[in-house]
């Protein structure tokens, strides 16, 4: 364990830390915290069910050489609807402007390296928001990304603008020759009355091991609307820790849908910090996994002000040797009266070697609230199966029908038609579902 820490430390020390002001401070603090904490073990309550040190304990390269990746490589995994989208390509953790394709005009959408944003007109925003997630993740993994924050990207959606072209973000690890560990970092600012849709996908090129440790911080101002769609469909040699940290600073609405289809070890941290009264946050997740995929969804909803609504629904279909973890935390602070917070986690186990560990957690300090959580782990309803079979539908088809119906509740939440169809198609194929 200490070996791994030293290895990473050694690598980091060879990097020269640059940046200004808050950026430099964050990098340094991240490095210090990483030195102190190292990679979390299963003794860390937040990492109890995910052995992240096993995945990280490989000879990873930090090489940031992005020149080997061509536009042709990117073509292979462009998502449907990309013709009308802003495409942002990150190679080995760093934004690659040449491969990216920005269709929106600069009065709608501004994309800058964090190292520049921290100096100019966005200084106040960066200073106030960069590294906010560290307060919720006091562990070595988050700290490691903070150490590399100087490579990050700043995205600003301008006031009163509804961005027509959704933002497709591809996080590419070029693992054709070496094992790659990348640390992408973004800070997204959505100004007053703005609206934007984000789609994120991780991609590994090549067959060596790949690890993405990504932190994305999103700041949402008054009356803004944000949709975040994540699609995770990789091979077993690709693992990731993705932290998405959303601050809602005014009456606003944020929807998040996370679809996990396959991969190595996948950890998603999704935090919603509701800092203003009257916010609405919806978090949906579907993990339909098999093989040896390990999917760990950790969510936090921190209700700090009154009259907010948060709604959370995560569903899982686990097959073969897949293991799933769900940990949902809802905090309702003392001032957050009249909060409505709902949370639900439903799982279906299709094999005896699959397992699920779930922990829906409520911490409530205000009395005038309505909070509930529920979770179920089970198999398909025998009676429903019988009903379908009695009507001439074969067992296999009946199962597929029921599972598809189970999944569709989440898929319906994707308000971007090409993406929804794309995911539906993959899920249907996975479940052998035909209409």
């Amino acid at each position, binding site marked *: 364990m200490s070996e791994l820490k030293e290895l990473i430390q050694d690598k980091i020390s060879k990097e020269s830390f640059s940046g200004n002001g808050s950026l430099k401070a964050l990098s340094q603090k991240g490095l210090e915290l990483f030195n102190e904490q190292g990679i979390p073990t299963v003794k860390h309550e937040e990492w109890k069910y995910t052995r992240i040190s096993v995945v990280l304990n490989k000879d990873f390269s930090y090489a940031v050489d992005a020149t080997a990746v061509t536009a042709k490589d990117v073509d292979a995994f462009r998502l449907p609807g990309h013709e009308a989208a802003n495409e942002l390509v990150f190679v080995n953790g760093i934004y690659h402007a040449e491969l990216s394709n920005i269709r929106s005009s600069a009065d709608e959408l501004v994309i800058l390296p964090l190292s520049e944003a921290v100096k100019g007109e966005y200084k106040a925003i960066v200073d106030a928001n960069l590294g906010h997630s560290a307060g919720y993740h006091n562990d070595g993994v988050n700290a490691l990304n903070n150490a590399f924050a100087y490579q990050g990207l700043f995205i600003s959606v301008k006031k009163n603008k509804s961005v027509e072209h959704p933002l497709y973000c591809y996080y590419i690890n070029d693992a054709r020759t070496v094992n790659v560990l990348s640390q992408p970092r973004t800070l997204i600012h959505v100004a007053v009355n703005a609206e934007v849709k984000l789609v994120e996908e991780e991609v590994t090129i090549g067959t060596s091991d790949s690890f993405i440790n990504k932190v994305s911080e999103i700041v949402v101002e008054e009356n803004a609307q944000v949709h975040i769609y994540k699609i995770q469909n990789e091979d077993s040699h690709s693992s990731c820790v993705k932290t998405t940290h959303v601050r809602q600073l005014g009456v606003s609405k944020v929807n998040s849908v996370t679809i996990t289809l396959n991969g190595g070890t996948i950890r998603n941290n999704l935090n919603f910090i509701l800092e203003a009264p009257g916010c609405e946050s919806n978090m949906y997740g579907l993990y339909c996994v098999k093989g040896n995929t390990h999917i760990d969804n950790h969510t936090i909803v921190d209700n700090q002000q009154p009259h907010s609504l948060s709604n959370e629904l995560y569903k899982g279909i686990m097959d073969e040797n897949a293991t799933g973890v769900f940990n949902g935390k809802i905090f309702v602070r003392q001032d957050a009266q009249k909060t409505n917070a709902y949370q639900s986690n439903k799982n279906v186990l299709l*094999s*005896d070697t699959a397992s699920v560990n779930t*922990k829906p*957690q*409520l*911490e409530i300090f205000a009395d005038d609230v*309505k909070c509930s959580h529920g979770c*179920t*782990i089970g198999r398909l309803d025998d009676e429903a199966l019988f009903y379908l079979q009695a009507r001439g539908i074969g067992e296999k088809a009946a199962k597929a029908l029921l599972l598809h119906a189970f999944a569709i509740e989440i898929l319906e939440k994707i308000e971007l038609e090409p993406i929804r169809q794309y995911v539906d198609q993959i899920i249907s194929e996975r479940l052998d579902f035909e209409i």
Partner: protein
Amino acid sequence: MSEMLTTLEQTALSEYKYGWVTNIEADEAPPGLSEDIVRFISAKKNEPEWMLDWRLKAYRHWLKMSEPEWANVKYPKVDYNAIKYYSAPKQKKTLNSLDEVDPELRATFEKLGISLDEQKRLSNVAVDAVIDSVSIATTFKKQLAELGIIFCSMSEAIQEHPELIKKWLGSVVPMTDNYFSALNSAVFSDGSFCYIPKGVKSPMELSTYFRINAENTGQFERTLIVAEEGSYVSYLEGCTAPMRDENQLHAAVVEIVALDNAEVKYSTVQNWYPGDKDGKGGIYNFVTKRGICAGVNSKISWTQVETGSAVTWKYPSVILKGDNSQGEFYSVAVTNNHQQADTGTKMMHIGKNTRSRIVSKGISAGFSQNSYRGLVQVGKNAINARNFSQCDSLLLGDKCGAHTFPYIEVKNSTAQVEHEATTSKIGEDQIFYCNQRGLDTETAVALIINGFAKEVMNQLPMEFAVEAQKLLAISLEGSVG
């Protein structure tokens, strides 16, 4: 509603009515913990060699452990060297009958509402009374013995039934299980032992009453219940302590073994001194309770009403090892003023067709923090395991907190596990409805709270249910308008 809140804040907590001290001469060990103290306790109790070895082993293991910090409670650390580990009311000779018990002591129990004589004649409950750390008297022993039921103090059992104790003590909660169980194993001074032979259904409820009396003492009792094939027993436990400014430690261990077709029902009304309204004093209640359904079709049911203690740390659990076995956990935990409770259960499904049910109701008032922490674990071979958990919290006031930490771990596809939880306050519409029908707000709130806790109260044996309902009303008096 705001009116209700003010009444709530204005009215002070009613006095803890069990807060007096009895002046009984006590035989005590000096404060502090060392191997010598362990030897002293063992010698005092005239224990055989193997028992002393067992204690020393536990003590040595305890030294290597550190106090757990994961619970959602905050309290000043316990100074384990300031506690007296042994305190027994002085007795001049061995007692032959109840009539020889110190009159002062009997008065104590009468004050508590457990008149040993009365109980003996009138009600149908056998009582084992434990004061400070030592069992004082056990009633109904003779009648029970006729059926082959052994119900006596732990010290007596060690002397008279060593083979049973050797076989079962520490079999469910190993001495190395956790920090407090190791401490208990090293220094436990007494407790109750109950053995129900094959096919016997206990004709009466067995009951233990615990009381901490002396100052600066810790109470470490150990209860062991063994239910042989096809037997049944219902066991009750109650506890009180005097009002003192210092915190006192109570670290008990309860073990239950249910063999084939046996059923054990364990009910607790816990009313240790909770500290005053500013959170000063009170008992630290760090208890390990665990049962094992070792045989097929066996059943263990825990029911608890928790109203006392400054800090509670308690997770009565069931290991469902036998096929078709059942585990149940019903709990009402009430916290007021500065009380903190971190309580819940663990259900470990190992056998086939095992079922468990968890119903937990938390009520927080004042500045208290009330946490439910539970684990439902379904192993690889637990085919058709079924669990249903429900934990509801009621918040009375805006300065208290309710927390839920349910852990669910499933490794079998045929398992069906459900968990649901809600948190709310008493609705204004509910109060209005009652007001409309002529109930004043106070009665209305009492009614609603009673309804909230009813599902659990219904599980309690008759005698206890009455007491528990009164307790609920007393601990919340003033906080509910």
